C-alpha cells in the first residue's frame, strides 16, 4: 500500500479494505479518499486501472458481492461506477 498512488489524481496514501485474506490479501478494495475512486483487489492483484479500461460488467458485480463491507460513501458516490446510479462520467 505504501507504494500505490491513485492513477487519476496521483493521491497518496490510499485506503485499504480487506475482504478476504489468506497469506496474501485475496480480495479487497483500494479507495482514493480524494476522488472517491475505488479499485478492486481480485485474485491477489490490485487493479488500479484508469476509467477507460474499467469494465462495468466485471467491476459492479464485485462491488455487489462485498457491499456489506464497502463503505457507504463508495456505494453511493464512488467512481467510476456505483451500485445506485450505474456509470458516472467524471
Amino acid at each position: 500500500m505504501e507504494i500505490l498512488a491513485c492513477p487519476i489524481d496521483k493521491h497518496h496514501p490510499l485506503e485499504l479494505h480487506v475482504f478476504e485474506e489468506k497469506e496474501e490479501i485475496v480480495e479487497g478494495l483500494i479507495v482514493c479518499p480524494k476522488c472517491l475512486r475505488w479499485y478492486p483487489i481480485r485474485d491477489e492483484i490490485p487493479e488500479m486501472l484508469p476509467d477507460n479500461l474499467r469494465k462495468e460488467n466485471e467491476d459492479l458485480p464485485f462491488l455487489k458481492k462485498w457491499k456489506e463491507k464497502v463503505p457507504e460513501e463508495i456505494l453511493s458516490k464512488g467512481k467510476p461506477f456505483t451500485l445506485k446510479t450505474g456509470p458516472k462520467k467524471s
Partner: protein
Amino acid sequence: MQKRIVRRLDLERFLSQVEPHPSPDPSLEQYTVSIDVAATMLHIASHVNGDVVGKTVLDLGCGTGRLALGAAFLGAKQVVGVDIDKMAVGVALKNSLRTGLEKRVQWVAGDIDVLCGVFDTVLQNPPFGVQRRKADRRFLEKALKAGKVVYSLHKHPVADETLMNRLRNGKGNPEAVSSSPFLTRFVEEHGGKIMGVYGIVMAIPHMFNFHKKRRHEFIVDLYVIQGRR
C-alpha cells in the same frame, strides 16, 4: 538474503518457465523479452553490478513477469511488477505461483504512474514507441524517478548489419555501443546519468501480422542509468 551465484544456464532454464503473453496487443508493443536478452540484462544487473541480490526491484511494464521473476529467482529481496494489461498480470501471477516465487513478487495491474515508492533497481523493457510515439520516454522518466539505478531496453537507433553479425557470432555476449544523443539528453534533463550501453540481439517469434518473417531479429540497446535518487 545472499544466494550462491546462479549460473547463466540455470537462469535461462528458469526464464524459459515464465510463460509469455497468450494474446499480445500490437498497439501496446507487447512482446515478451527473449530469454537471451533477459538473461544478459539480469546477468549484468546482478553479477556484474550487484544491483539485484538483496535489493528491491521494480519491473515497469512487466508483462507476464519474465524480468521481475528472473530478479526474484536471483535473490532480489522484494520485487514489484506493474503492467496496464490485466490479462498479462494474471499470467504473471500464475508464473510466480508455478515457480514458487509468489512471496517475493507483488503484481499490480495499472499504469506505471500508480507506483510512488523508491526502489534500488528498475528493470524495464518499455514499448519502444514504434507503434505509439514517445511511449518509451514516459517509462524512462518514471524509471528515473523510481529507481536508484535503471536497466532499460531501447531500440538500437539504426539498422547495423555489421554490428548484428558481430553480435550473432559473439554467442550472445553484449557489446558496448554508443548512446543515442536523444536518449542521453533526455536522461540528463531528467536528472539521470548513463553509465553504459550494451547492444544485444533480440529474437522474437512472429506474432503480429505486420511481422513478415517467421522470426524477427533486431538489436536492442541495454542502457544502464544512474537515477536521480
